[in-house]
């Protein structure tokens, strides 16, 4: 037999704010007559120290089991009164705060009607609290270590901020070296400051940090688990070069007889089978690319090993799998560039004088295929250069969005060419739709370029122009005129990194309509994701420049540092939903409904199971369950229906 409830009502006058419109004393008298109501009290201000003391005293004196407070918004004082209950030794959930101020007194003219409405709301609460259960706050053990996937600037920033003596960071980068796309740039906008000078010291810090385990040339193969308790399987690809022995002297490169297009130069230059990603790459240790190395094609080539003075080459190296346990995952998987050959009229192909902006950046970079000399494929200097903005961007046939940085990159390149006098007398022309340049200093750069004779031709949509390459020249057909240029640069859109798809799926993250990872909220929670403990930084969530990528890395690390403290347990949401195994038919409807991927399926029992760490208690699954097998704490069907009965 359930013991009889002992209910207490506390009606706040809120000075005249409530009692000016609602007759709280009349209500008090009526409520006192309800079954199991032990006390109904009225005070001027229950949120005051005296008011709170009165509630505590009454709970203790009257041995109350449930409390209903008629006062203001739950947004304002629910927390206050929950603490009051706790102080009185009562579970804080055995209470309902009824908003008779904002929702009644302040919005109703007629006093009689206001009083009747307040009475209805309080009776509804009286009905509802009968069903309130006591819930204890729950804590779980949590691992404070972090897995960062992607060693670009945002990932490195997150890793550097988080690594500490009591927090290990596993930084996984699929390429041999760190720094991501930013390492391909010679200089950055708006200051034309040297990228390597900015970036390399940071990357070196990552390499040297004893609390970061750098897993370069590695891939995350699997991630299972949840906030505080993830387990990731990582495949460390064989490098065939022993990092501890190699000193990065380069001697092994020249003897290698293999030459393949260099993917790090966007296939512009060539590289050997044993290679560095870029000169000055961090870590500066080459890898042998198994796909192209003659040894792995059955030939007995040992040229690189013969050249190595440190016995650092090991042809017997093998891929190695490792498992890491972490509490949190940072997804920093970056972007790719849009393939301009998808625009038929561009007739884009390698070998012509039409380049993507990233290829062109490599061309004018000191570490690029021409060591920074601006020359055409035939070795001659260009006299004219046309830069096309918005390639594949802002066009629903391709990518609907603006990639944010392309205009600035093209202006930066133009400045760089002129400032460094890369090609005497060169005429630079921009074909653009809108000049989307937000950051400080860019407007000035744009004006300077205009003064220096750079032409800007506005067209309705740069994707509608036509490019025709012939004899090392490119003809550019615009709506109203035709241009000829020695070289053309295409600011191709930044697109989601397809290589991250598998991981995104494993982490059960959602993508937006453009394929970028969807954060919890674009503005107010832009680095969190709906999957608790998983964060997204840098261009994985939308195209970003260096500044914003690094800000993202800092933001995510701040959140993780705050939420996952080494040695501390993790407090989880109390008001979650739970499944009654006996009622669950195993239809899995709830699994498809849950926005937090908090529901899994127990194949043995044939029932759905809610992970109490991931559940946030929205109750969507409860409403969807055809077997009424799920209940939402404090918002159970019975509780809501009881409240409804009181209202009507």
């Amino acid at each position: 037999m359930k013991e009889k409830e002992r209910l207490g009502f506390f009606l706040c006058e809120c000075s005249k704010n409530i009692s000016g419109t609602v007759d709280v004393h009349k209500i008090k008298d009526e409520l006192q007559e309800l079954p199991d109501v032990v006390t109904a009290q009225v005070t001027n201000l229950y949120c005051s120290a005296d008011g709170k003391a009165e509630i505590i005293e009454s709970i203790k004196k009257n041995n109350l089991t449930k409390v209903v407070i008629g006062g203001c918004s739950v947004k304002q004082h629910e927390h206050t009164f929950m603490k009051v209950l706790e102080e009185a030794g009562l579970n804080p959930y055995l209470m309902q705060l009824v908003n008779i101020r904002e929702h009644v007194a302040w919005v109703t003219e007629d006093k009689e009607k206001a009083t009747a409405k307040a009475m209805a709301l309080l009776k509804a609460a009286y009905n509802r609290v009968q069903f309130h259960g006591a819930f204890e706050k729950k804590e779980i053990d949590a691992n404070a270590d972090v897995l960062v996937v992607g060693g670009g600037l945002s990932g490195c920033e997150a890793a550097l901020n988080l690594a500490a003596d009591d927090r290990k960071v596993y930084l996984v980068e699929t390429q041999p070296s760190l720094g991501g796309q930013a390492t391909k740039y010679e200089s950055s906008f708006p200051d034309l400051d040297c990228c390597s000078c900015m970036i390399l010291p940071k990357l070196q810090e990552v390499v040297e940090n004893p609390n970061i385990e750098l897993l370069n040339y590695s891939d995350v193969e699997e991630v299972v688990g949840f906030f505080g308790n993830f387990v990731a399987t990582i495949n460390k690809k064989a490098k065939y070069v022993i990092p501890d022995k190699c000193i990065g002297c380069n001697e092994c490169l020249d003897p290698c007889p293999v030459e393949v297009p260099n993917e790090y130069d966007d296939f512009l230059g060539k590289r050997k089978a044993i290679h560095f990603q870029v000169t000055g790459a961090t870590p500066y240790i080459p890898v042998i690319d198994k796909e192209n190395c003659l040894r792995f094609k059955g030939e007995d080539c040992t040229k690189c090993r013969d050249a190595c003075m440190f016995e650092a080459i090991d042809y017997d190296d093998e891929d190695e799998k490792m498992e890491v346990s972490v509490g949190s995952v940072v997804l920093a998987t970056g972007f790719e560039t849009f393939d301009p050959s998808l625009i038929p009229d561009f007739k884009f192909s390698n070998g012509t004088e039409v380049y993507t902006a990233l290829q062109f950046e490599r061309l004018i970079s000191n570490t690029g295929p021409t060591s920074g000399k601006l020359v055409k494929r035939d070795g001659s200097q260009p006299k004219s250069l046309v830069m096309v903005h918005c390639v594949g961007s802002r066009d629903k046939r391709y990518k609907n969005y603006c990639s944010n940085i392309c205009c600035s990159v093209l202006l930066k390149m133009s400045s760089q060419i002129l400032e460094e006098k890369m090609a005497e007398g060169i005429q630079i022309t921009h074909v653009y739709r809108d000049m989307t340049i937000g950051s400080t200093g860019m407007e000035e750069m744009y004006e300077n370029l205009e003064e220096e004779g750079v032409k800007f031709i506005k067209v309705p949509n740069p994707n509608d122009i036509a490019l025709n390459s012939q004899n090392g020249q490119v003809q550019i057909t615009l709506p109203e005129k035709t241009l000829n240029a020695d070289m053309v640069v295409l600011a191709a859109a930044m697109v989601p990194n397809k290589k991250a798809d598998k991981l995104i799926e494993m982490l059960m993250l959602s993508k937006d309509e453009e394929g970028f990872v969807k954060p919890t909220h674009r503005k107010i929670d832009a680095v969190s994701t709906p999957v608790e403990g998983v964060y997204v930084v840098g261009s994985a969530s939308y195209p970003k420049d260096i500044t914003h990528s690094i800000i993202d890395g800092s933001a995510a690390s701040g959140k993780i540092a705050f939420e996952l403290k080494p040695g501390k347990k993790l407090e989880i949401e109390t008001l979650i939903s739970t499944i009654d195994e006996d009622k669950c038919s195993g239809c899995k409807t709830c699994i498809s409904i849950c926005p937090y991927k908090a529901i899994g399926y127990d194949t043995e029992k044939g029932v759905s199971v809610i992970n109490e760490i991931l559940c946030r208690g929205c109750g969507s699954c409860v409403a969807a369950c055809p077997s009424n097998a799920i209940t939402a704490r404090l918002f159970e069907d019975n509780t809501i229906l009881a409240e409804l009965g009181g209202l009507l």
Partner: protein
Amino acid sequence: MTETKFEPNIVAFVCNWCSYGGADIAGSMRLKYPANVKLLRVMCSGRVDPEFIMEAFRRGADGVMVLGCHPKDCHYIEGNYKALKRFNMLRPLLDQFNIEQDRLYLDWVSASEGEKFARVAKEVNERITQLGPLNWKEVIGQHQSREV
């Protein structure tokens, strides 16, 4: 016996994060709306089981409102879309129960839209007043009640 003006009984299911807050702002702005619109807070509009709506009608509501966060603003990412789907599913079915579709109302009220909350409350009240009493409680009887 004097004829009193019909005042409908209206229940508004409001989500905790947006619409409850919108109603708070209406209060802070002292915007008046009919006292017969009574709020029932749920964490998310996605929690509103169509059964609650039918129960509300059965227990004497003349109109039911479901108010959630604006599209893309849901605190729980997409609960409001679920509310919309269920609304679209339930509304045409109301005809079969002799309940006018206009007695069920779904809208989005943000935590800043006090004005909208008060306006919507007034408009729905006006609409239901014109429709008159539902009296479904009498029609359907007590026997189909879900035990609580």
